[in-house]
């Protein structure tokens, strides 16, 4: 009998040439997009030079990277403020998967509270260093308590009743609260940006590295941000309440079964986020020396972009994203003009969403597992 052996053919996966491209784009696309701006302007400075000033009526053209370095120094210190706000977004998103739209406006209220408290304490630029530092520390603490409580209050009123409703519902109340807070700010300090006293002399140069002047403001921002971020990660990683936060973020039902008070834990998360926003508000008022009722809108969107860029739910990611957004902002501000900055940052937001929605360091949410 004639036997034919039919070799079993395995089903082959369809050849998809685009898949490889897509994988590489997902992995490196965002990093390439982020590197594009500094690399382009760095080469531009080296090749064509930049105007460093005037000597005897003649423009002095330099061919080095210290202008770019200046952009980075300024950008990183802007970014540290965005990072503080972004942590609030990322904590809240991690635990209840809600974009807390009102967060940027909580930050604005923080700025206003801080400036109001300066007036109450009578802080002025001419004071002694010790009194000024003490006054600012007291302002910082009170501002953080105020904004933290405000954030907890918003959660209690606007988000908790909707916890089991569709996601859209809580998002809409968040937008509503954002507008309410903005109008509170509008009535509090009027409709146009107000300048506030420059208490610490933010633009004084402290020292110079490689031609880049490091100003007091830059140092101030990091002096406030770094301890707060370390305190926060200590809290989340080692304390009992921090463990409850992480457990609730992973699985609220299971956390409840293990005896965790989920509502209290969510309130605590909002408290921490609001406190960091308040600190950012104080630093912003000191650093920019002006406050505006609309500042929270832009800040909120920049910070949210930062949180998504780092990977939402991820605190380290929020800090990294904040610093990167700050640098992008500084580059756009100084090279293209501040009127284009928002468009550039939002363009990056869309690029992130297309190329790598899980962010640079990976998101830590329930959906991501």
């Amino acid at each position, binding site marked *: 009998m004639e036997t034919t052996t039919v070799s079993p053919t395995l089903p082959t996966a369809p050849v998809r040439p685009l898949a490889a491209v897509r994988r590489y784009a997902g992995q490196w696309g965002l990093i390439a997009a982020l590197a594009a701006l500094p690399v382009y302007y760095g080469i531009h400075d080296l090749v064509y030079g930049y105007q460093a000033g005037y000597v005897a009526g003649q423009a002095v053209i330099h061919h080095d990277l210290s202008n770019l370095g200046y952009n980075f120094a300024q950008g990183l210190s802007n970014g540290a403020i965005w990072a503080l706000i972004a942590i609030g977004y990322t904590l809240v998103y991690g635990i209840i998967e809600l974009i807390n739209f009102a967060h940027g406006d909580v930050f604005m209220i923080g700025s206003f509270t801080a400036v109001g408290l300066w007036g109450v304490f009578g802080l002025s630029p001419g004071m002694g260093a010790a009194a000024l530092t003490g006054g600012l520390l007291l302002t910082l603490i009170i501002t953080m308590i105020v904004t933290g409580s405000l954030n907890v209050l918003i959660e209690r*009123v606007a988000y908790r009743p909707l916890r089991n409703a569709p996601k859209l519902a809580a998002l809409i*109340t968040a937008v509503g609260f954002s507008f309410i807070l903005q109008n509170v700010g509008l009535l509090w300090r009027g409709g146009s940006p107000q300048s506030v006293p420059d208490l610490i002399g933010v633009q004084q140069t402290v020292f110079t590295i490689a031609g880049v002047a490091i100003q007091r403001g830059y140092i101030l921002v990091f002096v406030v941000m770094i301890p707060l971020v370390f305190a926060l990660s200590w809290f989340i990683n080692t304390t009992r309440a921090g463990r409850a936060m992480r457990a609730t973020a992973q699985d609220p039902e299971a956390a409840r079964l293990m005896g965790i008070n989920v509502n209290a834990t969510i309130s605590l998360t909002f408290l921490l986020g609001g406190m960091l926003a308040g600190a950012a508000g104080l630093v912003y008022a000191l650093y920019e020396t002006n406050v505006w009722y609309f500042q929270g809108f832009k800040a909120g969107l920049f910070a949210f972009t930062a949180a998504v860029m780092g990977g939402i739910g991820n605190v380290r990611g929020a800090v990294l994203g904040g610093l990167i957004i700050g640098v992008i902002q500084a580059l756009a501000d100084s090279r293209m003009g501040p009127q284009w900055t928002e468009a550039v940052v939002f363009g990056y937001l869309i690029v992130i969403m297309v190329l790598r929605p899980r962010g640079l360091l990976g998101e830590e949410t329930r959906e991501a597992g």
Partner: protein
Amino acid sequence: MSGFLERLRERRAAAVKRLPRWWNRALAGALIVVGIVLPFFFPPDSGFMNGTIIAVTYAVMSLGLNVVVGFAGLLDLGYVAFYALGAYSLGWFGSGFFFNLRVHVLVSPVASTLQGIHLNFVLILIGAAAICAAAGMLIGLPTLRLRSDYIAIVTLAFGEIIATVAVNGQSVPVGGGMTLTAGNLGISAVDAPYFPGTGSFSLLNLRPWYWLILGILLLVLFVNLRLRDSRLGRAWVALREDEVAAVSMGIPLVKTKLLAYSVGAVFGGMAGAFFGTYYTEVNASQFAFGFSIFILAMVVIGGLGSIWGALVGGLALGYINNYLIPDVLNDLPSKFGLHFQLTQVEFGIFGFLLVIMMLLRPQGLIPERRRRLEMTAGIAAEDAQLAEAPTGEVTVILPPGEGAA
């Protein structure tokens, strides 16, 4: 209280049953006739007519956003982009803004002597619709695989980018010494609509404007009603309720979502073009984020997914915004000794309305049938049945003919 409401609801159900079958059509016809003759009861240049025209235009936008947010469940926070694109279509193709060109198609004798591009208003409407449909698809593409709240942020970013470009368009050259937009100075002296054989469109006589936008509203309303019950409309609702289930039943995800964005955008663009000619100016300062929220508030207050809700929400907020707050209630805070005017905090008021609405009546003023059943009658009754079944008497309903066994 709830007993009273229950009785009221029963009465209503009984009354609806007794009505003849042509009742709905007759009611709709009567409303349309009232809408058409309404301007004869008011002076042609009154503030009320102005408020009505603006409210009707808002209703058109609200119906458009309802397609995206209500039907398809895609939260769009950048709807102002389509207002901007529609208005700029008018600014570009219906004024002397591109002063180096001379294009005239079916325009009034006066406009046909002027520099710039001058197209008939109907052509501009079609152009605005086409531009917005394309832009809607463009913004739809990056959001396809994202979750719902990321969609909100991406659309918001898109709206802000369009607004930024509109403000800074003065410094974007398009050749021949012309720029992309006129920024905050505004493109002014835009053409009024012109139709041979009808009265002229001037700001002293608002009636023709009213009939024009009423016609647009009726068209949009008709398209909306037909879409809702079509295959596409059901596909949108299915995607909104459960994306995975819908796709596995064979609904094309990409096409359906992109169509939702573009249909919504088309309506927004038409309303935007009308606003452009009605305000006689296309100014970049009109296109702020707050406007997107304003339109969203109309849809939410009316009832997400409900066509009549979106219509009523748009008209109501339009009147509140353009008549009630500025003309009637503006001095209210000063009567309480507060030093501000109500117009300053109008967005705060809308934000407050959004919060209150979501907390107290999330289904809106006129809820969509499906949602109302979900939220009240259907689910509650079902739950009650499930809870009561074991304790009460078990009744088995058998098909006729098998009961004898």
